[in-house]
């Protein structure tokens, strides 16, 4: 096994974790509302920029410091509630009024919101790349001739923890069960007394918090962020969600990791300038060969 292979798997898994976090938001909202929230990638991007804002605010409060685990925690604690709030706001004012409209209407609205967020960020922060502060000092750990960084390990740990948290939430809590009930049969969910609007807000809240966390880690990993970043990452995460079977939570995690690995290997063995092409080949193939996704067994239309 060449070291390039191992190295690209490590790199691919890292970015795959971030794709998976974003993909969860797509898949949760789709499962509950049958809506592709194309603004979700932008929430991820806003998360990255809010990471910058949070860091600057912390810097104002504590001019002496600047990096370390506490700072990382501080930035996350700032960003995740902010993006969660943004997601809830978007649902409330952009999608909820269209709940009974034809399905094309919320889709177009989602694209509109996506442009809106991109342009607001561009107006505030400018169109050029912004450098993201190095909140963690990067250390290399050799693995044969390949290497893994503490940042990569950190991204993996945080992502896995968040995914486990989500899994627990959906499986065990009252609201989580209500979400699954809603995904199964919205009317029946109303009939047992579930406030469907509130559960919908929860789905956006959680999905957007995860995307925010993904945005911060994206910034930490690549060191620069741009208002365009959400578009591409969002599309790839969407691909991941479709690959795993849209509406399927484990599928989204799996799909994200797979897209990441594929991208890593493609970049290592073919060309890194072609990196973005691979994910979309997968999207085309999956739509042709298995539109329900790898783990999505059921596409039974209810009458």
């Amino acid at each position, binding site marked *: 096994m060449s070291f390039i292979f191992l190295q690209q798997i490590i790199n691919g898994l890292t970015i795959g974790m971030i794709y998976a976090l974003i993909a969860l938001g797509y898949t949760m909202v789709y499962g509950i509302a049958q809506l592709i929230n194309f603004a979700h990638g932008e929430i991820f991007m806003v998360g990255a920029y809010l990471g910058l804002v949070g860091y600057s605010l912390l810097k104002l409060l504590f001019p002496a410091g600047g990096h370390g685990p506490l700072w990382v925690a501080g930035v996350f604690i700032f960003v995740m509630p902010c993006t969660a709030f943004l997601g809830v706001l978007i649902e409330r004012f952009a999608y909820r009024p269209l709940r009974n409209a034809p399905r094309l209407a919320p889709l177009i609205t989602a694209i509109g919101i996506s442009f809106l967020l991109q342009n607001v960020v561009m107006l505030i922060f400018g169109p050029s790349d912004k450098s993201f502060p190095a909140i963690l000092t990067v250390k290399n750990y050799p693995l044969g001739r390949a290497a893994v960084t503490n940042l990569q390990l950190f991204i993996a740990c945080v992502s896995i923890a968040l995914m486990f948290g989500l899994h627990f939430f959906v499986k065990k809590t*009252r609201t989580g*069960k*209500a979400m*699954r*009930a809603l*995904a*199964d*049969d919205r*009317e*029946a*969910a*109303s*009939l*047992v*007394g*579930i*406030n*469907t609007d509130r559960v919908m807000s929860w789905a956006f809240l959680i999905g957007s918090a995860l995307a925010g966390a993904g945005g911060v880690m994206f910034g930490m990993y690549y060191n620069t962020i741009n208002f365009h970043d959400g578009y591409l990452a969002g599309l790839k995460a969407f691909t991941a969600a479709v690959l795993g079977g849209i509406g399927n939570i484990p599928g989204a995690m799996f799909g994200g990791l797979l897209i990441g690995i594929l991208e890593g290997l493609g970049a290592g063995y073919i060309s890194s300038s072609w990196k973005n092409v691979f994910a979309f080949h997968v999207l085309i193939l999956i739509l042709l060969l298995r539109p329900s996704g790898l783990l999505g067994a059921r596409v039974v239309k209810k009458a």
Partner: protein
Amino acid sequence: MLEVSDLHSGYGRIEILKGLTVNVPAGKIVSLIGSNGAGKTTFLMTLSALVKMRSGTIRFEGKSIEKLPPDLIVRLGIVQVPEGRRMFHRLTVEENLDLGAYTRRDREISRDRQELLQLFPILKDRLKYPAGHLSGGEQQMLAMARALMARPRLLLLDEPSLGLAPKMMEVVFSLIRKINQKGITVLLVEQNAWRALALADYAYVIESGQIRLKGTGKELLSSAVVKHSYLGE
């Protein structure tokens, strides 16, 4: 307990209920019979606030409830077992029962569950199975048990015998009586007119969105119109 008067309701431009007046006295079983498309399901869905009413009044225990959303209707104690069972198919039987108690926060939920499993013993061995794997009769049991978990005061049953084998039908109707004996008021909508009338204290015949006949179950069983149109005699 439930007083509905001059209720108009429907979907889009189509009006289905054209001035329905129905009374459900506390503690009784009231049946509503009628053919397909007469408006039976629309009536229950309007009571559950899933279909928006156009005009008329709905009073539950003296309070008007026309403007309440579906979840608050359930909290008031009006719980529906919808037509076609409408299980949460991918959730387990146990989770379906838990969701039945979604509106409750008290400590007697697990006790109620134990009690219901006595009433619906079929479900006991199936707790960990996805509800979608149950047979039609078992799903009907689960649908009723799920509704009872909410501790309803008025239970709305939409075609509980639909698609069931005769033996299972028997079980379902005797369960409805048992549920009623526990003090739960029942509003039953059925195509199986004979069964529904035999069970009912009071009954209504609904035709194209209006009440055609009303009376006690016995009176309607012997009424010429009912005999001719609904009992096939």
